[in-house]
Structure formats: C-alpha cells, structure tokens
C-alpha cells in the first residue's frame, strides 16, 4: 500500500484534467470553430456590400469587452459573438442594386433594407444548432423605448453598431455624444454606460488603433 496514495492522486488528477478538457477546453475550442465558420458569412456580406456592412472583427472584440463589463455570463457572450458574425446575413436576400445604391435610398428601399434583421433571423433559425442565436440577430437593431425587455446582448449590438459606424465616419466624441443623447430612448442606458466606460478606459491610442484597423478593413 506504499504507492497507494500517489497512485490515487495521479488517477484523480488525470480524471480532473479530463473533465477540464471535456467541459472547459473543448467547448471553448468548438466555439472558436463555429466563429471561424461563421466568419465566412460575415465576409460574404462584407464583399457583397463592398465593405459597408457585416464587418465582424472590430465589433466582436469590443463587444466581448463591453459584455464582460456588463457581467453577461459566458454562454450569453458566446451567443452574442455568434450573432455578430451572422447579424447581417439577411442581406443576401436584399437586391444588389439597393445594397450598393450610390444615391440615398427611398423610404420604400429603406424599408426593405430594414427587413434584413428579420430575414437573417429566419435564416439563422433554420440552421441546426444556431436557433438560439436567432433572437439576437432579429433584434440587433432593437430600439430601447420600443422593446426594453429584449436581451441585453441585442441592446448591446444595437448601440455598439451605431457607435462604431459614427466613430468611423466622424469621430469618437461625436459617437459618444450620440449614444449619450439616445440613452434611455433609442439605446439601453446601462449598455451606453458600459460602452462609454469601456471606450474611456482604453487608452486613447488604443481607440485610435481600433479605428485605424477598422479603416484598414475598408
């Protein structure tokens, strides 16, 4: 029985390692695989709209930082990340000439564009294993005053998408003031606070490199 204790220890340790692998490492790796797969579809929309929509990389990174700040649990953060890659997939069904129209859209065309979230959600619902992502895809342009009880992740995407778009086209300060003005009306106030907090906390050069990398993506 001399060797009993260390042998017992090794056995327990290796079973613990196995469990860690099976319940922690493997799910994380599967999540990465899924993101890799869905990235293709974000790129598809990006190519189809000549870089105006569907971009996922700059958003995914910032969104997960904000989500952590909001205290979203891991599975919810993963769901949100998958939704980021899929959110504009509905644009495959929007006619090319509307997506790429150089002049401003007519109200009817804008209406059609607005349906991409709904179409994307119905596409996502039909993919086995991704149905749980569909609600976030459907609500990724949600307006806080209309649907305050939508998932927090959807509110986050809605606000963050606008923040990134304005920060790219104008500058960070304008984006921040738009978000502040819209807090409680268009945007979820808690989400706005978290986004602005995250942005402030990142050093100025960090934000610049983000917008720079976003600009490189164009």
């Amino acid at each position, binding site marked *: 029985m001399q060797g009993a204790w260390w042998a017992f220890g090794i056995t327990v340790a290796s*079973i613990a390692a196995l469990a860690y692998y*099976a319940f922690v490492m493997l799910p994380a790796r*599967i999540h990465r695989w899924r993101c890799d797969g869905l990235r293709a579809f974000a790129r598809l929309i990006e*190519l189809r709209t000549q870089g105006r929509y569907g971009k996922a990389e700059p958003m995914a990174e910032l969104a997960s930082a904000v989500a952590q700040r909001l205290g979203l649990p891991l599975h919810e953060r993963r769901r949100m990340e998958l939704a980021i890659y899929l959110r504009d997939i509905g644009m495959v069904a929007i006619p090319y000439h509307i997506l790429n129209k150089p002049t401003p859209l007519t109200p009817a065309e804008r209406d059609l564009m607005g349906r991409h979230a709904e179409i994307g959600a119905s596409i996502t619902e039909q993919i086995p294993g991704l149905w749980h992502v569909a609600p976030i895809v459907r609500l990724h342009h949600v307006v806080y005053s209309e649907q305050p009880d939508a998932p927090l992740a959807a509110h986050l995407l809605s606000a963050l998408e606008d923040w990134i778009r304005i920060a790219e086209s104008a500058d960070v300060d304008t984006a921040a003031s738009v978000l502040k003005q819209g807090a409680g009306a268009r945007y979820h106030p808690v989400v706005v606070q978290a986004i602005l907090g995250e942005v402030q906390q990142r050093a100025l050069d960090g934000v610049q490199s983000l917008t720079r990398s976003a600009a490189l993506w164009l």
Partner: protein
Amino acid sequence: MLVLGAAAVAVLMHAGAPLLQAQSLTSFAGVALLAVAAELLLIRYPLRPEYSDRGIWLSVSTPIVIAVILVYGWQFGVWLDALITLLAGAVMVYCRSTRARWVAVNTFQSILSAWAAGIATAMVFETRSGVWNLQSAGALGLGLLVYMLVNGALVGMTVALAEGVRLRWVLAQTLLSLPRDILLMTPISFLAMAALHAYGAAGLLGVLAPYLALRQAFVLAARQQELYHQTIRSLGFLVQRAHPYTGGHLQRVSMWARRVAERLGLPPDRCELVYEAALLHDLGKTVLDERILNKPDRLTPEEWEEVRKHPQLGAEILRDTPFLAPIIPWIALHHERPDGAGYPFGLMGEQIPLEARVIAVVDAFDAMIGGEAPNQRRPHKRSLSLDEALAELEQGAGKQFDPKVVEVFRQVVHEWRAHREARAGA
C-alpha cells in the same frame, strides 16, 4: 468471416473452463451490471462503424474490459466482452440500426482483441495482489494498446473488404486516434481496476458516474462538431437559395463529386471535403449582382467580366476560415481548363488540383442537363439529355475537361441512372 468466427470460438473454448468453475456471484453481478450499462449507452448513442475522424469516438466498454482482465484474468475478460458486444448488438438489431451479420463480426472481433490484450498483459503483470502501482498502470496501458491495435486492424480489414475502401487509409485513421484514445481511457480504466479490486463488482458503480459524465461530454462535443459541418452545409444551401436555379443543382453536384472522388481513390475525409467544396463552389456568386446572374439573354463583355470573378470571390469569402483552407484552391480553380483556356489564371493540366477538375466536370455536366424544376433551368441555355451531355463531356475531354475524371464520371452517371430506373421500375 468464417476464419474470424472459428478463431473466436476457439478462444472462447480455450477460456471456457476456468470461468465456469471458479467465478463468484459478485463477478456475475458485475457482468450483468456492465452489460446493462453498455446496452443502455449503445441505445442512446449507437456507435458508428465509421473510421472517420469527424466525430470524437470513444469505445464504450474497452476500459472496463481491460480492468476486468487485469483483476479477474483474461478468460473472464473475453467472456465479458463477448457478452457485452452480443447484448448491445442484439439491442441494436432490435432497433434496426445494424444487421445481425455485423453483430456477429463485431463479437468475433472483440473476442479476439480481448484475448490478445489478455495475453499481452499476462506477460508483464502476473500478480493480482497489488493494484496501486506503476506495474499495473503500465499493464493497463499495454492492454488498451493491444486491444485497440488488434481491434483496429480487424475492423479495418472488415471495412476494407466490405466497402472497398483502401486498407491503408482505414489503418492510418485508427493509428492516428490511438494515442488520444489511450490517454483518455487509461485513467478511467485504472480507477475501474482499483474499484474492482477493492470492492468487487459493486465498486464499479462508483466509477460509472464520472465515466458517464465524461462520456456524455465527449458525445456532446462530437455532436456539436457534426453540427458545425451541418452549419456550413445549410448556410451554403440557404445562401445559394437566393439564386433559385442553383437549388437542386448543388445537391446533385456535391453528391456526384463525392462519388467521383471516392472512385478516384481519394481518402474518405478528402471525399467529404470534396462534397463540401462542391456545395460551396459557387459561393462567390452570392456576392455578385443577381440581375446579371439571372439575365435571360447574352451577357455583355463587362457582365462576363463580373461573372468570371466568382471563383476568386468564393475563395475570398472563405479566406479566414482555417478548417476550410484545403477547399479554397478548389473553389478558386473550378473554372480552370486542362488546355489552359480557363479562368481566372489559365492554369494547365496537372497544375489544376484534381479536386477542382472533378468539380469542373460535375458542375458543367449538371449545368448541361439543367435542373428538374423549371426555375432551376439555366436561363441562357437549352438543357441536354444525359447522353447528349455525356457525349459533350467526352468531346471536351483533354481540352475543357480532365479525361480521367470524365471517364470515372461516366461510370458514376450510368450507375446513377441504372439505380434511378430500378427504383422507378419498382
């Protein structure tokens, strides 16, 4: 199969005597418990007889069988394994998920593997007094190794004989997953052995819980991996539904492409990739203006220029998806021609990957015969009959198409037609 059966029966008869004389009641209870556990597991997750590395594959009872061999002796292990395989097989036959013939083959295989493992462990591990030592752990690892090697070789031979897959590939698949499997199974087997040694069969109950939990996790993981392939496939379908005429086209093209790849002797996982590549080969078209793609009359030169971008656009879409990296060149080059007149690069003959040549032939063929539903017909061309299209392919062999691929594809189409006619007749 007869040889296998004879050998297995000989082993059982050789093992038979000590078992019937000496085993105690608890051991029999252990057998019953294990058999029931294995049965239940198999009902929920029928093991696939595949050698594909696509899922994570864990054998249900091997660790426990090896533990039993070490504690009670190989005779007992052989009988146990035979019983488990037979019972589980019977349940699977009852559920119609396999045939009785395969259960028999499986049982013979496991008897022989357990026997080999027993002989091997008996050489290094004689005393049954101490379990908690390095010697027993080593014997356990050796037992698992021998069991899986023998089983892998036997299964490989059977699969190779039955399905005409090359033995080398099957064995390579088995060998590749061997270290992982042994690493995963040894601790569990060790625990099972210790429990058996200390508490008899009842001790296994304590091992069963973590064992089931882990198994469940791996099964889930395997299923999720399946799901992600399904994700790719369904997104491929859904996205291309945006262009109505590609609907049934894609299914046929990918099915035929996989069959041609199999006939050309590509390894199974490669054939699976060819299937996926054929499904996604026109992915780039989703980026283009659908007014050009759906245009009923002749395209202008500028419009042609746009259409000719689609192979590269498809490759561009998949650029950041590492697990699809092998298929990117096939998609980018599926409009190249062996005579160098294709696009986008004008590569010649062997410069074009074989898989791309396969997709080119199958794609062109299906475009010629047109879809089955009216809205699947290509707008700008009249569709041909199967024979006309085959004749066209043969005319283009060497110029537009790879002659070898055309030859193989002709057989595939003839078989498909014979099969379809047989089904229509019946």
